[in-house]
């Protein structure tokens, strides 16, 4: 896996750790937000890929700066590395949707410092940088959150926007000013994921309306590639039109 910078402005940085070498588990991205002397991880990943994720992160930040992690929902690709992180950085704070706190503890590390996120989301400060945890329930998990950094205009969207891509893919969807060609090619790899993993038309519609009002330069999903510039609204429009919540849908070939 490698760390690639997405955003950088005077001590405020976002990195994506992507392109996993372990192909037996689903390919997942980890995002790291650095501000001042602190860093926060978004969906720090699974047990199996932990050595790759941590060694890629240490290329770009000291481990001692990692103070916080956001867990968007309860899936193993999101946070089964929790006990491993906890044994390396025992004073880390974990933000987890309240509904999942007791479930997440099944991964181990009963002593880990876990803060429950209320159903309506919450505001957060990373060393003074304002952040918003935005509810995205039923997208796909019944309790699910995203994170918005209004300063960097970066929206971490968990499994929303996910695509199943080939190894060696680029961290970005592609040129956003090509009339949507790169987007159209990319979104084929996202369709089955959204139709099969997203259960609620209502939740999806609510999310599209809410998020389309935010200023977003980068929409960062936990699988696949980042939507930048015009590809952000292209994605929201596409998702808004997509029928979801039917298990009979077949994977694209």
């Amino acid at each position, binding site marked *: 896996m490698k760390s690639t910078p997405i955003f950088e402005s005077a001590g405020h940085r976002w990195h994506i750790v992507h392109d996993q070498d372990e192909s037996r588990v689903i390919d997942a991205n980890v995002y790291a937000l650095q501000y001042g002397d602190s860093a926060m991880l978004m969906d720090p990943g699974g*047990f199996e890929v*932990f*050595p*790759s994720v*941590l*060694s*890629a992160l*240490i*290329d770009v*930040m*000291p*481990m*001692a700066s990692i103070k916080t992690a956001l867990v968007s929902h309860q899936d193993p690709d999101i946070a089964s590395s929790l*006990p*491993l992180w906890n*044994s*390396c*950085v*025992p004073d880390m704070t974990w933000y987890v949707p309240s509904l999942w706190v007791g479930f997440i503890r099944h991964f*181990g590390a009963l002593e880990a410092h876990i803060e429950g996120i209320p159903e309506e989301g919450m505001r957060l400060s990373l060393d003074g940088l304002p952040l918003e945890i935005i509810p995205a329930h039923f997208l796909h998990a019944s309790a699910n959150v995203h994170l918005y950094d209004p300063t960097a205009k970066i929206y971490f969207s968990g499994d929303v926007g996910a695509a199943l891509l080939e190894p060696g893919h680029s961290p970005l969807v592609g040129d956003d000013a090509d009339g949507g060609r790169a987007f159209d090619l990319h979104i084929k790899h996202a369709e089955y994921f959204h139709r099969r993993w997203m259960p609620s038309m209502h939740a999806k519609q609510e999310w599209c309306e809410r998020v389309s009002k935010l200023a977003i330069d980068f929409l960062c999903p936990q699988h696949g590639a980042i939507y930048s510039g015009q590809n952000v609204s292209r994605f929201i429009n596409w998702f808004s039109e997509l029928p979801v919540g039917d298990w009979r849908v077949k994977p694209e070939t």
Partner: protein
Amino acid sequence: MNPRHVAVIADGSFHAKNTLRRALRDIDRRALNAIVHVKRHGRRLAGYGMVAQAFREQAAELRALADAMQALMRPLIYAQMEIVRDQQTWLTFKRLCAARMARETSRQNRSQAQIDTVEKKLRREAHTHRQRMRAILQELIRAVARLQESISAQEYVVVNGRIEAALLRADGADLLMQVSADMATAVGNTRQAVEHYRQQLEEVTHEIDADF
């Protein structure tokens, strides 16, 4: 692997890498300045030209050795995290064993054989990972030692430079004195950072050997 060792290696490597990057850039820049300065003053400072060239060549060697050293940092951290993962697996395994012991009595002998097989496998994997980490750690310490030798050679060039600059009486010699003094500081900082990193690595090696 205790959290302190993890922090020492991960954060020690991160800081050593950054300090070195800055210091090497500084050394390179000063070497280039010396060359430009000598060229500008023509034959009067020609005696220093050899020194300035040696600065430059030595700086290139330092950079190559530092790259070789840094290339080992990531595999080392990876190997270390494999051990962290092994420890967690081992912990879970021991909990399962304890839970089984508390429940089972009659079928105990039958499942004991399976447990022994799993235990053997876990021990074998953990041993392989520890050996791997130890080998990378040793290789890294050797790479640090090579870098230290090169730093000593650079320090020797710097001393020569200071003597050479002191002997010059031409215009611009003051500036070369300054260049030499600055170079001595930059190389000294590099030496200190690398020494400190080596100490950290050796300390962890001793403690890990004791744990093994």
